[in-house]
């Protein structure tokens, strides 16, 4: 084995002064440090054994550090010679764990296959998490959160909606009470500590719709009540919303989105601004996928509980058709007075229908078909 020779800077660790030195390691591991230029009074020849020196693991092409027992440091850019040195005298077993981890990670970084595998693995992991992982995680967490926590989380939800989108209901008290009675009859046996309640609001912006908030508050718009031809149609919508509550859908949405956001932050690191917004786009797109799956789950709940309340699956198909028709021509059912000029409203309506088409339209037909099939299968 030849004697290895390195040149670099020597720092004594007391002062910032750099001394250009030559460091050589003979086959027995004896290290000699001597000034590489003319001797100065401040440099003695230093001798020790290679085992007494800790050698920093390789990291790209950054300079290597050979640290002596007395805190002095030898810095050199001759990475290949240092690697040869480490090959001849492998790091002692008492080397810090993180140094060994780093050395192993470096072999991965150097290997083109490992790098390609990392890229592929990363893409697969992101896809897996977006499609399966996040929903699974959300399901696991959402069903374990106690009802009190859920209530805390959603305590502002209705207030926020009231402030932003909703006006008080214009339905008269008798009508509201009648629907509350229908709702009370539909509630499941096992409330799981949740306090189900039904509230009515009016909203021209949202139109006929119903939501289930995480704290088991179900919100129905006057527009939907007016759109329905009979209480049976309202009842199936309520069952569908109870299905959302039973499956903790709103909570799961929140958890899924947070999970995806956390994943993106992990990958992008401290990238700020526009690029991180654009990279968050996949999360937004996944939202539509998630909500379709959830609609389907809520439909399943409604289908399974229709019969026990003496309701027909066709009621659901009817109200869905009416909703679809409203979204295709919203202006027809909207009540004047409207402050918007006529054609602008038309424009808005068309944009809304395009968006509907993109996100849920194919699914709507699918959903209607599902209830119709159930109707045919049902005993008359």
């Amino acid at each position, binding site marked *: 084995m030849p004697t290895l020779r390195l040149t670099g800077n020597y720092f004594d660790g007391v002062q*910032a002064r750099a001394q250009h030195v030559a460091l050589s390691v003979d086959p027995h591991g004896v290290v000699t440090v001597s000034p590489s230029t003319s001797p100065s009074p401040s440099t003695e020849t230093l001798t020790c054994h290679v085992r007494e020196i800790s050698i920093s693991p390789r990291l790209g092409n950054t300079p290597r550090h050979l640290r002596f027992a007395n805190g002095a440091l030898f*810095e050199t850019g001759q990475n290949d010679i240092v690697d040869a040195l480490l090959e001849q005298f492998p790091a002692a077993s008492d080397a810090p764990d993180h140094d060994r981890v780093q050395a192993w990670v470096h072999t991965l970084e150097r290997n083109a296959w490992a790098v390609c595998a990392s890229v592929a693995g990363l893409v697969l992991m992101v896809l897996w998490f977006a499609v399966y992982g996040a929903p699974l995680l959300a399901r696991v967490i959402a069903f374990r959160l106690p009802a009190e926590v859920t209530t805390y989380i959603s305590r502002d939800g209705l207030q926020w909606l009231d402030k932003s989108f909703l006006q008080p209901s214009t339905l008269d008290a008798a009508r509201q009470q009648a629907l509350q009675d229908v709702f009370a009859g539909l509630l499941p046996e096992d409330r799981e500590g949740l306090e189900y309640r039904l509230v009515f609001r009016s909203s021209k912006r949202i139109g006929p719709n119903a939501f289930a908030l995480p704290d088991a508050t179900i919100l129905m718009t006057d527009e939907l009540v007016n759109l329905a031809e009979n209480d049976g149609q309202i009842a199936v919508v309520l069952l569908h919303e109870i299905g959302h509550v039973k499956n903790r859908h709103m909570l799961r949405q929140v958890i899924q989105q947070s999970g995806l956001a956390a994943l993106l932050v992990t990958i992008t690191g401290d990238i700020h601004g526009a690029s991180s917004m654009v*990279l968050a786009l996949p999360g937004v797109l996944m939202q539509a996928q998630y909500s379709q799956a959830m609609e389907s789950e809520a439909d399943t709940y409604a289908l399974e509980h229709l019969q026990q309340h003496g309701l027909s699956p066709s009621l659901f198909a009817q109200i869905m058709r009416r909703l679809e028709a409203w979204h295709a021509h919203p202006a027809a059912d909207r009540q004047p007075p409207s402050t918007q000029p006529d054609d602008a409203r038309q424009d808005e309506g068309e944009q809304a229908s395009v968006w509907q088409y993109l996100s849920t339209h194919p699914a709507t037909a699918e959903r209607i078909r599902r209830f119709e099939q159930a109707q045919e299968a049902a005993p008359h």
Partner: protein
Amino acid sequence: METDRIVYNIVYNNVMLAMDEQEVYANFAAMFRIAPEKAAAILSKPKTVLRSNLDAATAEMYSKKLKAIGLDVDVVKAGKPGAAVASVSAASPVEAETQIEQKQPLALEPYVPGAAIRRNEKYALSAREAAAYKGNRILPFEFHGTGLEYFRIWIVNVFLTLLTVGIYSAWAKVRTRQYFYGNTQIDGMAFSYLATPMQVLRGRLVAVLLLGFYLGAQYVSTTAALGAVAMLVLLSPALLVLAFTARLRFTAWRNVQFDFLRDIAGAYRVVLFPALLVGVAFASSVLTQDPATAGKLPPTVAGIVAVAMLVLSLGFPYWQCEINRFIVNHAAYGNQPFLFAARASDYYKLYFLKLPGLFLLLAFTVWVMTMVVGNHLGDVFRQMQNVHQQTAMPAGNKVATDAYLLTGLFFLVFMVGYAYVIAFMQASLFNLRYNQVAIGKSTLMCDVSADKLLVLYVVNTVAIVLSAGLLIPWAKIRMARYRLSCLELHASYELEDIVNSAHHDNAVGQEVSDLFDVDIAL
């Protein structure tokens, strides 16, 4: 060998720059076990020979020991042993007075003064004074990292982090930092990052707990949320000191660590008042979010909030300057403190003159654009409405394309203008903080250009988006290379004499800083 040996004298010049005289006297007295008054008497006379007729190794050892306690000394060749020194006799009275220590030879371990650094502005030089030192070498900061090399490190880091559900992120962070620090070099000598992954992991846990406590409190009750805001405000000065202490002490260059004076009382003096004002803003937003109190705030509370906001906006440039001054003036390289150069008036010019000017310029650009293409755009929209009403589809496509193009053009101008404002502010604030920072007789020069930063932002963003994130490492390398290319060290010969004051510290403070996004970019 023995006969023609050269001998050396140790000549004392002065107390080192920025060291506290009294402390140096006390250290000197302790070292040689003499009375403090005697030490003061000896050290008040410059150009004193403290030791004579020493061999090279002993002279160097004395020099190091004395420099470590803050004495500016020189090792002077004195010719052959026994030869008379021209100015001072060989056996100086000083030597006789301090003879006692001879019984206990000094060891070569670095001497660590009780407190790392003491600010003493009397000794610090302003940038102008420092620049007056002729012969300062101009040393540019260099960055040697490459996109491809960092891509390999980055992708393996991200992959292992996801595989270990985030635990590896501490190791990944250390590796990333070490890569960027190691590639940052001055005069061919690299910076190094000293934290270990376990330190980073511990710090991260503390930061997550703090953040979780803060966020969790908002779900419990309004009172708890207000309490969390108050806690954060009251802790913020201490967190600032902890963060910078960790950040700087984990950084080394030439085997000498950077340092930060743990002046928590000073931090409270500088930071607490503006932090309280920011806290008032947070508290009022908490109250308006709570339906129980929203809209029902008594007029006195609303008045207090309004006054606090007014004071905060008027005083913001001043406080930003003072906080930066506090940070820079408490930082040190070894035992050599930094001295901040910018003045509050520079910050006022930036916020009250240049920034509004920039907004006016932007508004003017948009106005000109509106004049030039606005009429055309109006025509297009009128046509569009007509088309819509008549539902004459064939003509519609062309008109719609025009409308989209023009809207797109406005959007682009707006986005680039917005990015320019950000680039301008970042460049200005970075320059204000680091340009002309004096380090003893050396100076840091910094000249980041907003134009070049803007080009970097735009190109990086486009590259990251088009590559679905795979060019993030390339973008980061480009950003680091540009930022460092704007920095120069005008180094005095004294830089070599800077003495290490070694510390071992944990990463708690630093991780807190990373989560709450306090940034120091050096």
